[in-house]
Each structure stands twice: as C-alpha cells, then as structure tokens.
C-alpha cells in the first residue's frame, strides 16, 4: 500500500476490483462511518463463506482436514462461524495457494473441484484482504551494522575506518545483516565501539599533530652549550638547572597550532621555574611550571605556523635567584596540534571554532559539539545532549588537556552515545489502526540507510527541518536523486552482495575450502566476478532497466581478467565495462560467475544448489525444507555404481520424499552443467560430453543456459515479486509479515505498470506505507494471524 493512495491497486482480476470498490466506498465515508462500513464488508464476506465456500470445503477438503484425521495439522471444520473464518486470513492464504496451484486436493483423490469451483475459493480468499488494516509492522531500535557504521564515520569525519577488522560480524537473518531484531549489542562490541571512537577521532582530527616524547628520544637536551641527543630509552628524565630542549618539527599544513608542553617541577624554594617556548628562535610563550613532577600539567600556547619545517625550543630557566640550585624539571611531552581545520574537508567541518580573544574555550567547544552531535545524531541535538557533551569537555579541560584533545574526548562521547549507534525514532501519535507517520528526520535516516547504507546528507536534513520530506513529490524526487548519487553504491554492494551471495566469494569465512582454489580461481577473477554482479545490478537500477535484464540482458560487465577466464576476446585493462555478448552463455544472474561458484560444492558443481537458488530467488517458489529423515544419496550411488552424477540424482529424485522439490530444482540446475565449480565453461565431464538438457515446471524442456534464460524470461512477474520481497525486507530491516502482502501487491503492480523497471520496485518500496510509518503500541491486525488449526508443535 502506498501511503499517498492507500488501498489503490492496479490488480486486474475482476473480483479484486469489486472488492476495491467496496474499499473505495469505505474510504469516502467519514471516520464515524468507517466501523459500520467495515462491518458491512465483513458481513458480505461472511455470507459468501457460508453459502459459496464452506460447501465446497465440506465436499472436497473435509474428508482429510477434519478433527479426527487432522491431515497437515489442519482442521477446516473449526471455522463454523463466519467471524472465525474471517479471522484466520493468514491460513486461508496458504489454502488459496494450494488450491490454485492444483496441489490440493491430491492428484489421487477422486473428487476434484472444477476450475470454476477452485476460482470461487480463491477469489473469496483474495477478497479477505480488504478486511486488513494497514500495519507498519513491529519496529525495533536499529543498531548500525558494520557497513553502516563505517559509512557514517566516512560521512562525518572523512575517514574510511575499516571497522570490519575489529568489530564482530553482524549476524544474518532473513538473508540480510541489517535486521534490527538480530543486531544485538554485547559488552564486547561496546568495548570495541569505545576503542574505535578514540582511534577514529585521533586519526581524523589529530593525525597531523606532532607529539614529542621527551623520554622517547625525540628532543635533544642542550645544557651548558653541550648537546646531548635524545635517547629512546622511554624513561622520564629529570633536568637539573637551566637547559634547552630542542628539535625540528614538520608542520603538515598552515594554520593556528597549539603547542602543549606537559611538565612538572621539583622546587627548592618558593618560585616556580620558568618555561619559555620558542619557534624558529622567536619566543612565543612563557609560563611558570607550577605543577609538581608527580602530577605534571600542560602549558599551552596558540601560534600560527606555516607549513614546513620549524625549529622548536623549550627553554627551562631556574626558578630562584641566580646562585640557588636544586630546581629539577620533568618534561614529559611536547605536542604540536593543529587547532582548526583537519586532515580532510570533512574533518574541517568538525573543528569549526577556535578559542581566542572574544571566544572562550567552553563557548568554542559548545559550537563544535552542537554541529557535530546534530550531524552524528541525524537530527538537531537537544540541550540535554549538549550539556552532557560539555560536561565531558569540562572534565577533560580540568584534567589539563589541550583544547583539541579535550574536544576529542567530548566527541568520543558522541560516538558511543545511543543516538549515534542506534537509529532512535520518535514515537508519534497513533491513528485508529495503531500506526503513526514517521517524523521527517527519522524518514530521512530510513531513506539514507536504505539507499546509501549511511547517514542522510545536508539536503535531506534540510528538507526534514522544513518538514517537507514526507510530501510524496518531495520524497520521490529525493529517492531518485539518491539512486543517482554515488553513495547508492552502498545499497548495491550490500543488497546485491547478500542476495547474490557475493560476500561468500571474497570473505575468508566463505572460503573455508581455500586450498581447492589456490592457483585455480585467482583473487583477481573472484573480485572481477563480484564486480560483474554489482555492475549488472547497478546498471539495471540506475539506468532504469527492466528486471528482464537480470535474466537475459545480452551483455555483462567484464575486465580483462574475467573476460580471459570466460574466454571472451577483445577486453583489455583492469576496469570493468559493459560488454555486449553474442550468445546466451553468459550475462544475467543465472550465469553470473559469482553465483555459480557460490552455489557449487567445494569439489564439484551442484545442479541441486543452483536449481534451488533459481526456484527460490527467481521463480518465487521456496522449496519445502528437506524431510527429516533424508535418504542418502550415497545409498543410491552404492546401488548404482556405474551411474553418472546426473543419473544418480535422477534415481534419487524418484523417491517420494525427495521428489516434490528435487523434481523442480535439479532439472533447472542441469541446464547449467556446462559451468564447472569455478564457473569455467566446459564441454565435457571426464570423457562424456555435458548433457545440459533440463526442464522447467510445466514440462518446458530446454538445452543449455541460453534456452533456460529464454524460458525463465517469461517469469518476470515472479522475479519482480521476489525482488520486491527482498528489497522490502532490506529496507525495513525486519522479517516480512502477513500484512506486507498487500504492500508487495502494490509495489509489484506499479513495477508491472512501469514495464517491470527495477528502480520502480526500489522507489515504491521507499514510498510504501510501512516504510513511512511506525507501529505505535499494540496493533489491531494481529488477529489476522489467528488460526486455531495451526498450533505449533512444541516439545
């Protein structure tokens, strides 16, 4: 459902349209009339159940699905009253599928309903949808996953922080690693966040600072005209009497710098020793060392420095009148920090204020905090949040840290705050269905983490601030802009990387059988295979191509390494590019090298795995799980010692328990047998020529990948629906539920109307009802799932 036009649908079936008319009427009535009109709809549907549907069920189904036999854990007799029947909508949906596909009643049952009778049941079940209330679905606080964290840091600080190296892997549910329910936060990860925050800020903001450790041998000691070169012995050193500490520093870029000297003194009389800081011979600061050696303190000054080398000298003069000796000084570190700006444009956007005449330290820190926190939290920071940050600044300042270092501590608090690590959405006011429209800032974040795997940019936040982002035209324009933006690679890599199993190809854990591949499938080819897949996916998305291009595009993306591996001539160089193909061997997801490899065994190709992926991800027919007591392929092989792999599978398939699924999966996979486990083309297996003949449901026979693609290209509706399911799951970051079916119907209908353009699916997903809404409190439509016959068997 689209929230700009709820319940609007482009479905073509007549009963559906009739039902829609009813709903349209409901929509026209005022709020007061809603309940009454809905009752009328329910009454009409109840009557149809009583007079049309129930008699058919009694005739054809009740023989097995009754209280005693309870076949399939199902008793259709319990739905005696209309109200009960209407509540069990989730169950009816499954019934509709079985009846429409002809799976039920079973073939060997003598009494079979006519085509018309099947249609009566089916249309009644489809009409039940009109009783459903829109439901945004359960919302769970969404922690940033590894990729999202990395991109958020990239946008905030201009630093590519490979968090993946140290953070634990996010667990996958429903095919993706961005499912809120599954993204948990352990103490282990919290610890990593804390350490990472320090590391990130140090690198992003203070990387070009110069730190000289006195004990680390960085400073030469000049005393009585004698130069004693610094020794890297790492020990603190007491300096007695007047001395110079000197060194040459290199300043990376021009600007105001803080020079911070951490020092303490042991004093023989009341006066503190004097410390002077000189740059290129010119004194820039002088102060007395009042801190004791046991608790050193920092003496700082701010000086403009040009880029390049400078002579830095710290002069220590005795504290007392001439003649008195005994002053001893410890200098721990001398640090030169760039005060404003940073190592990148993004970092310059962080250190935006410098303390100086007219601007106190704390005021400068407050400005920095407000800007940074508002960007990191993806909405304006609240006074309470800013007060917290300033109290961290105060603490660091009181400890004697230089301004940039105190700011760093303050910003660390931002990066470990829940407002940064989670997407915290504001609770709105519930409508009568228990949903509320998302706040514009929250919508901006949902959009950006969906399409960019990263935070919203300034344009989105400005529209959110103006309260305009949720306006359909504005939102649509933004989605289109976001898809065209380079950051959309985040969606392409993460979605395609998981849907097309690309990650299994390049990540170490997916390569447990590495030894098999050494020298056979070089890393360059692996990486090019991944790039081929993301190249195709990105092209279809960004160029407004139809989903048919996923199946039989007539082109693919290659570089020299991959073209050579595929034996396609005329491609030179490392960069991937679109290459038109002359035959149907390659091109499209069915024959992506990456997917063929991912769906192989370590030591051989797997027609079953390949077929299964296509059945599930292209034809939208998830096979049932294998039966608990799997008859072993090995027995079949033993009984038929001279059979080929293909023959063994064929025999295996005839066993009743396996037949249901393998009958469908294997014959599709056979069509891809020309590709070995590395997706390399082969004509022979051993001495025998490859038999690449296969069959699709409906007894559609084919020979080889090109013919397979031609047949599958007729199933674009199925593919569009699979894509809509996967994209919606990814976009919402949750498992789909019953009420999402109506949303999918709408997305798929709009895609069909656009000529099956894939970008339509993505755009309509972002405009869909659950994407723009939150469920508030308990939700009404849950009752739709109630199905007394479907009790779970628990131990």
């Amino acid at each position, binding site marked *: 459902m689209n929230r700009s036009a709820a319940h609007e649908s482009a479905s073509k079936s007549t009963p559906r349209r009739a039902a829609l008319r009813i709903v349209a009427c409901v929509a026209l009535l005022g709020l007061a009339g809603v309940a009454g009109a809905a009752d009328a709809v329910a009454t009409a549907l109840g009557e149809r159940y009583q007079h049309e549907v129930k008699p058919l069920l009694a005739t054809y189904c009740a023989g097995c699905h009754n209280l005693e036999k309870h076949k399939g854990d199902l008793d259709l007799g319990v739905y005696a009253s209309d109200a009960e029947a209407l509540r069990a909508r989730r169950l009816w949906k499954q019934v509709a599928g079985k009846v429409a596909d002809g799976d039920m009643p079973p073939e060997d049952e003598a009494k079979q309903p006519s085509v018309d009778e099947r249609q009566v049941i089916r249309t009644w079940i489809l009409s039940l949808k009109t009783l459903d209330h829109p439901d945004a679905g359960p919302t769970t606080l969404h922690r940033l996953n590894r990729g999202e964290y990395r991109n958020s840091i990239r946008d905030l600080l201009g630093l590519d922080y490979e968090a993946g190296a140290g953070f634990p892997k996010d667990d996958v549910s*429903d095919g993706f690693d961005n499912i809120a329910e599954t993204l948990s936060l352990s103490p282990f990860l919290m610890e990593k966040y804390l350490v990472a925050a320090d590391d990130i800020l140090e690198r992003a903001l203070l990387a070009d600072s110069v730190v000289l450790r006195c004990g680390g041998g960085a400073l030469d000691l000049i005393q009585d005209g004698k130069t004693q070169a610094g020794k890297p012995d790492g020990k603190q050193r007491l300096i007695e009497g007047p001395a110079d500490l000197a060194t040459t520093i290199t300043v990376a870029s021009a600007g105001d710098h803080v020079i911070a000297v951490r020092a303490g003194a042991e004093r023989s009389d009341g006066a503190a020793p004097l410390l002077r800081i000189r740059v290129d011979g010119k004194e820039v600061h002088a102060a007395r060392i009042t801190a004791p050696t046991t608790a050193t303190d920092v003496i700082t000054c701010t000086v403009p420095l040009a880029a390049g080398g400078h002579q830095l000298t710290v002069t220590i003069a005795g504290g007392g009148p001439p003649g008195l000796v005994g002053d001893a000084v410890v200098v721990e570190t001398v640090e030169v920090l760039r005060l404003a700006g940073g190592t990148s444009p993004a970092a310059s956007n962080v250190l935006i204020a410098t303390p100086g005449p007219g601007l106190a330290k704390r005021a400068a820190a407050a400005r920095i905090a407000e800007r940074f926190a508002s960007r990191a939290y993806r909405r304006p920071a609240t006074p309470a949040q800013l007060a917290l940050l300033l109290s961290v600044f105060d603490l660091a300042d009181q400890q004697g*840290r230089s301004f940039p270092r105190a700011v760093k501590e303050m910003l660390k608090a931002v990066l470990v705050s829940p407002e940064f690590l989670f997407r915290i959405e504001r609770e709105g006011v519930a409508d009568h269905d228990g949903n509320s429209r998302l706040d514009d800032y929250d919508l901006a974040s949902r959009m950006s983490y969906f399409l960019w795997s990263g935070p919203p940019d300034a344009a989105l936040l400005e529209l959110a601030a103006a309260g305009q982002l949720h306006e359909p035209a504005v939102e649509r324009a933004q989605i289109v802009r976001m898809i065209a933006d380079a950051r959309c690679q985040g969606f392409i890599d993460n979605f395609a990387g998981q849907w097309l199993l690309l990650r299994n190809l390049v990540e170490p854990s997916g390569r447990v059988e590495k030894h098999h591949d050494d020298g056979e499938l070089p890393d360059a080819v692996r990486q090019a295979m991944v790039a081929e897949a993301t190249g195709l996916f990105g092209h279809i998305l960004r160029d407004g191509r139809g989903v048919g291009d996923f199946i039989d595009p007539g082109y693919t993306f290659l570089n020299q390494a991959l073209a050579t591996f595929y034996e396609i001539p005329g491609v030179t160089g490392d960069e991937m590019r679109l290459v038109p193909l002359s035959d149907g061997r390659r091109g499209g997801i069915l024959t992506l090298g990456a997917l063929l490899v991912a769906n192989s065994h370590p030591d051989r190709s797997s027609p079953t795995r390949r077929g299964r992926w296509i059945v599930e991800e292209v034809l939208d027919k998830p096979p049932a799980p294998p039966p608990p007591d799997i008859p072993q392929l090995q027995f079949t092989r033993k009984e038929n010692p001279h059979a080929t792999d293909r023959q063994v599978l064929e025999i295996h398939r005839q066993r009743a328990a396996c037949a249901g699924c393998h009958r469908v999966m294997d014959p599709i996979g056979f069509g891809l047998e020309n590709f070995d486990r590395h997706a390399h083309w082969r004509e022979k297996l051993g001495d025998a020529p490859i038999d690449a003949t296969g069959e699709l449901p409906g007894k559609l026979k084919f020979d080889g990948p090109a013919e397979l693609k031609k047949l599958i290209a007729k199933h674009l509706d199925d593919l569009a629906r699979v894509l809509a399911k996967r994209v919606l799951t990814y976009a919402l970051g949750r498992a789909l539920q019953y009420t999402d079916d109506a949303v999918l119907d709408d997305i798929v209908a709009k895609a069909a109307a656009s000529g099956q353009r894939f970008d339509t699916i993505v755009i309509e997903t972002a405009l869909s009802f659950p994407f723009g809404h939150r469920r508030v409190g308990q939700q009404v439509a849950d009752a739709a799932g109630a199905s007394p016959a479907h009790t779970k068997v628990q131990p």
Partner: protein
Amino acid sequence: MNPPLSRRTVLRGLGAALSLPLLETMGWADTPARVAASSAVKRICFIYVPHGVDNANFWPTPAQTDLTLCRDALPAVLDPLARHAADLLVLGGLRHRMAEGDNRAHHARETATWLTGSAAQSEVVHNAVSADQLIATRIGQATKLPSLELGLQAGRSAGNCDQGFSCAYHAHISWRSPSQPNPREIDPRAVFDRLFSSSSLTGRNAYGEASLNRSILDLVGAQAQTLARQVSSDDRRKLDEYLDSVRSVEARIQGIERKAADNGHAGNVQLEVPAGIPGRFDEHARLMLDLIALAYQSDSTRVSTLMFSQAFGRSYPEIGVPENHHEMSHHGHDPKKLEKVRRINIHHVTQLAYFLDRLKATRDGAGSLLDQTLVLYGSGMGDGDAHDHVNLPTIVAGHAGGLRTGRYVQQCEGNFCDLLMALLARMDCSVDAFGDGRRPLPDLA
C-alpha cells in the same frame, strides 16, 4: 559542582532502583565482590564441536568403565586422551531434547541449544541465557573479563543459514540474554590485547593523560536511561542491551583499575602471539587454548567458551581432509567419509589433550590448574548423519568442585541439561531447573 561525579553517584543509585532485569540478574553492579586471594578459585571452559562424532570409534566398550585400566585400548577418537584418562569422564546416553524441537533447524539448535537448553525460535532471535553466562554472573565480576568467548571461524555473511532461522544461532554457544549472543573473538592477537594490554580502555594514553573512558560511559549511560523511559517498549529492549553493555564495560574498566592498584597481574604473562589468524586449524586452536590457560593462570577470567568450528563446517587439509566437515558428516555410512569424520574427531580431541597438558603443567596453589578447572567438551548432535540429539558425545575433564573421574558412564541417569545443572552446582552456581533439566546429574560423583 562536579557534574561527572554526582552523575556517577546518581547512576549507581538508579542501577539499584530501576527495574532493569538484565542488569540486575547479570550482577554487574559496582560492588567489588572480591574473592579472597587465597581461597581456591574455580574455572570452567566449554569447548564445542559440531556434527557429533563417528560413534563407532568414540565410545569405549561397555566393559571399559574404568578408563585408567584401559588406557592402551581406548577407541581411536579417545586415544589422544590416554595420558589424561584419570582426569576425565566420558558420559554416554545424554540427550538434548530441546534441540530436537519440532524437527527443524537441527544445525541451528545443535549449536544454540547446547549450553542454553532452549529451543531456538525462527522469525525472532530468541534463546536463553547459557550456562557459562550464569556462572560468569556469579564469579565473573572478580576478574578483568567476566567471561571470554572465542571461536576459530567467523560467521557467514550471505545467504540463509537454516530454514528461516537466524544465523545468530549457528554462530554462538554463549548467550548473555535470550536475544543477545556473545560475539566470539577469532583473532588471537586481539584476545591477547584484550586480556593483557588494556591501555586502550583505561590507564594513561600516549600523551600521559588519564583515561576518561569510564566517566564518558557513566555520562552516556545516565542519559540513555533517561532516553529509555521515553521510547516504546520494543525499543527499550535494545536500549537495555546498550545499558547493560555500557555498565559491563564500566565494570571491566573498574576491574582493570583495581588490578592495577593491587599492583598488577598474577604471574608473569609471556606468550608469543603472532599477528593475524593462523590458517591451520590446529595452530589456531592451540593458540586460543594457550590464551585461555594464560587467562586462567593470571586470573584474568574464570569462564570461557571456545567453538572449534561451526555447523557450516570447515576443511582440514593438514590431516588429509580437504573436504568440508559438514558434507563428510552426512556420510551415509560410506566408509571413506566415515574415515574422514574419524580423522577430524581425532584431530579435535588431540587439541583437547593439548589443553589438558597445559592446565596440568601450570601450578595453581597447591596443585595444578586442572585441579581447579572443569572442561566440558562435546557436540550438540549425536550422529551428524541422522541429525539426532541423543547420546551426545560428551567429555568432562578436570577436578574443580569434585568429580569421580577416570570413568566411562555408558548410560547416565539424566539428560544433557541435568549435566549442565551438575556443572553449575560445582561452580557454586546451583539452579533449581535448567532447560528440561530437573536435578543435577548424579553420575559425576
């Protein structure tokens, strides 16, 4: 006014008053429940292997009830443990009924149920607190790390794992709460740093500045509690996870500081830990086991879990098994595949024997570390080919809490959860019920 300090005080007050079940039950309060240094400190380690074993070569014969009398005639898989025969129990007939569930997702449950006794659920991630975490709650706060979770393999990153069940179930045996699995560290260097060089968390940094991390956590934790009161109940669950983690890291920092104040760690920690993850299973496993032994020796932690591999398996080219363990486990009684499974089983048990060597060789008080340690080694499946959860291959080694070791018990009087209850009791963490367990397994004494 000193805002950080007063905030911390407030936070402590709230921690006790707020109804945050997770925080309370996990016991991460600031109370320094130190165990007297001289009293015997007990440790426990859980080592997990997937897919059961080659049963024909794992179980002793019914007559071999006294393992010390038949050291030289042990079945092939147990043979590497011959020198430790007096220190272990081989327990037969243990069943994990909760892992059988509704006959789905056997691989999810062989892993996730092993230490939790709870049937993993599809659609949402929902398990139960694992036995190791119950123990960590009791004895963990006395050490730098309440518990240590290690693995030798990262999780899977694409594709579904097991019929709609989250991959979280495959990847974790240790569960902090029903929805919060403990991530495993797989990089030995990172484990070492976490255990023994904690300067990144606390202490003075390279510029001589005292760490503010604890104060920062105090502050953000306090604000998050305010936030938790404003969000929906669903969101609050996740915020509670956050708060729990924040408090836990705070407690850890405090523990490190306390240790530092007590003048450092017990014993001189010396271990050459290379950077990067060793490619060979056995090298990797031994490094991790070394680290666990060191952590016990230095009393940096007392509770650990180690997953030798995961349900999706791995290969072991170093012993001539380039095939995947999972695929071999579906051997269909093919002798060639069974032979590979046996080799893998022996390879795994050899690492266990190495670990017991290490524990035995380390002095602890009057005896060895093994005297004060319990090691549970086993699998959540009995027969990987049949996907069953009966007669789970189970070895208990060590002497903490008193066991009558050196025996093979062919048919234990209870199920696997009863065994976990018995181990919990020996770790001074008795519970009235655990999963489908009803009383501590009597066979250990």
